[in-house]
């Protein structure tokens, strides 16, 4: 549309994020902190040194995977809330492969581990899909149940069969993903994440199948009328979504965490949903929002450490960012606002011509 509309629509998410920081600043000041110093620490934490930039990328990697998992599912109108469980199951199969001592050389072992993680995530993701299609079960509830089961199953493994003698955790994986930037923890997983993101982008927007998938998400009935295989497409999106999350779990395990322990994967699933929706269900948008979230996370750590503010203040600010970003992007889509924007952008240009 008009240039000015573009500018406004482009500004609103930024403004809403800035606004959340403003509220955060008030919050910090109200409990006796120095907001400017706090945000300096935040910036320093995310970008201060090469190692910090690396940390940010490391933190972004799993978020990209779960964000993409949510993007893929929601694009097809499928509400997969089970990315956390799929993420965990991907890691579980990876650690199991590592524990049985296959004796494979490093590279094949890594490939096998990652593929197995994706397959495990895909299978775990297929369960709500199959149940939805055959029994009409709500995928949200099934995937939440499966999250609990996956987490408990992981707990059973690390405190039982795969326990490393003295702690409730597994042994480290026998092969690790190579690090790609010296003096940082950045590993090859980020490359995998980027490749997956671009593949999904290509698939969704440049293939016939992707088009069908999106049309199911836009209007299931219309897609049915058009003769698209709606059920197959939905099942496919469950499986692919699960596989992406499972891949993420596997990569996180092989690249960053190295072993399973209590709290592995916690919160990544829901973060992924938020990231996907703020990223407007666009794989590239998802990528960027995941990076933004990672900046916030690493930055916030340093901010808390540097200022000595209570940890919960950081959580509050992070939630504020989600609230404002979501509210802001929703705001521009309000019919009234749209109209105002349209009028406003129409006036200066066309008004002169008339």
């Amino acid at each position, binding site marked *: *549309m008009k240039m000015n509309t*573009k500018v406004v*629509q*482009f500004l609103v*998410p*930024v403004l809403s994020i800035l606004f959340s920081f403003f509220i955060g600043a008030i919050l910090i000041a109200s409990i006796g902190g120095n907001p400017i110093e706090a945000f300096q620490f935040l910036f320093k934490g*995310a*970008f*201060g*040194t*090469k*190692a*910090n*930039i690396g*940390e940010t990328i490391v*933190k972004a990697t*799993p978020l990209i995977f779960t964000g993409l998992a949510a993007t893929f599912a929601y694009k097809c109108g499928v509400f997969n809330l089970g990315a956390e469980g799929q993420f965990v199951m991907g890691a579980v199969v990876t650690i199991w492969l590592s524990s049985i001592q296959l004796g494979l050389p490093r590279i094949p072992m890594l490939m096998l581990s990652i593929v197995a993680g994706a397959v495990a995530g895909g299978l775990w993701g297929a369960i709500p899909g199959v149940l939805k299609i055959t029994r009409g079960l709500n995928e949200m509830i099934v995937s939440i149940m499966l999250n609990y089961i996956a987490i408990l199953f992981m*707990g059973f493994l690390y*405190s039982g069969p795969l326990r490393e003698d*003295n*702690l*409730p*955790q597994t042994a480290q994986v026998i092969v690790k993903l190579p690090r790609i930037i010296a003096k940082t*923890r950045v590993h090859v997983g980020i490359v995998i994440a980027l490749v997956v993101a671009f593949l999904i982008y290509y698939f969704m927007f440049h293939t016939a199948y992707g088009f069908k998938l999106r049309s199911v998400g836009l209007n299931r009935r219309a897609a049915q009328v058009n003769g698209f295989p709606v059920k197959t497409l939905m099942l496919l999106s469950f499986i692919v979504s699960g596989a992406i999350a499972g891949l993420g779990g596997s990569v*996180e395990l092989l690249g*960053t*965490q*190295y*072993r399973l*322990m*209590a*709290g*592995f*994967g*916690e*919160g990544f699933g829901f973060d992924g949903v938020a990231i996907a929706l703020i*990223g*407007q269900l*666009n794989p*590239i*948008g998802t990528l*960027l*929002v995941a*990076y*933004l979230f990672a*900046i916030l*996370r*690493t930055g916030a*750590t*340093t901010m*808390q*450490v*540097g200022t*000595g503010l209570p*940890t*919960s203040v950081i*959580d509050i600010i992070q939630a504020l960012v989600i609230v404002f970003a979501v509210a802001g*992007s929703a705001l*521009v*889509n309000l019919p009234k606002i749209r109209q105002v924007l349209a009028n406003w952008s129409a006036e200066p240009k066309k008004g002169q011509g008339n």
Partner: protein
Amino acid sequence: MNKKLLSLLLVFALATTLLAGCAAPATTTAAEATDVANGETTIAADAKAYKVAMILDTTIADGGWGAASYNAMVAAAEATGFETQYTDGIASADFATNLRSYCDLGFDLIITPGNQYSDAVNEVSVDYPDVHFAILNGKIETANVVSMLPNAEQIGYMAGALAGLMTKSNNIGFIGGMELDTTKMKLQSYEAAAKAVNPAVVVASAYAGSFSDSAKGKEIANSMISVNDVDVMFGDASAVDSGAREALAEHEGRYDIGQPADLVKIKPMPVLISSVVTDNASMMKIVMEDVKSGTYGNKTIFGDLANGTLSVGTFSDKVPADVQAKYLEIIEQIKAGTFIQ
């Protein structure tokens, strides 16, 4: 269109921040270093200000392990003149990131209250050889990592012996939070000690799978009372224990043994008969003094009855004098290592 613009914007944000970031290391590492140094020299005009931090996965307001560890650090820091800071409620994926942040900001010592932080400490301590690390309940010993290890076996013995002496129904209970190594050890020796003083004792145990779900603690205790007729309990699950205590308090003649603070003294409750006190502060004090004197590293500080880290807490009036006397006798045996061979 909206999407395109949004992504454009984000690319822009990404690019600028990356640029800023890339430019930073070359120029600021030096600047930063002087910055930090300046900041420190101003404070350290008369004496170097030592700073200690703690990271926790639980909260410091959990009325249990987290609170006890944090308070121990504060007490030890007051005695040795350290400044303190903490971060709590961290997910395991963020342990390392947090440790690095503290290292970057010039902290001298970082204490991690639990073995679950060992991996993160191992990894980060290599990258920051000048920062000192201490792990409570840990096993690592390197040039800049020290472990502090309260004797879990003795803690279990102490609680078990008292439970065995106090039980009327010959049924005692144990609630664990997670299956930590130390928790399992405590359960095992709790059972052994109770059976040693009272062979008829049967132990019921359960894991809450949480350190915070106090409602579940109450439910577990309730079922132990109704199903197993448990009348003395001991817990190793922080806030979950306080839930269990509430269930016990609703019945006549059912008791709980507290830990790690001297709960009867701090906050007497009819249900609490005594506590197994772990003085983590004294171990942390040793660690802090080592940092100051430059003699840090390559050791484990053991905490047991003999060196006073473990001790018997205040008794409530529910414990008869003859039982107290008998119990203290057993404590001497535990101390001497002659209790259970």
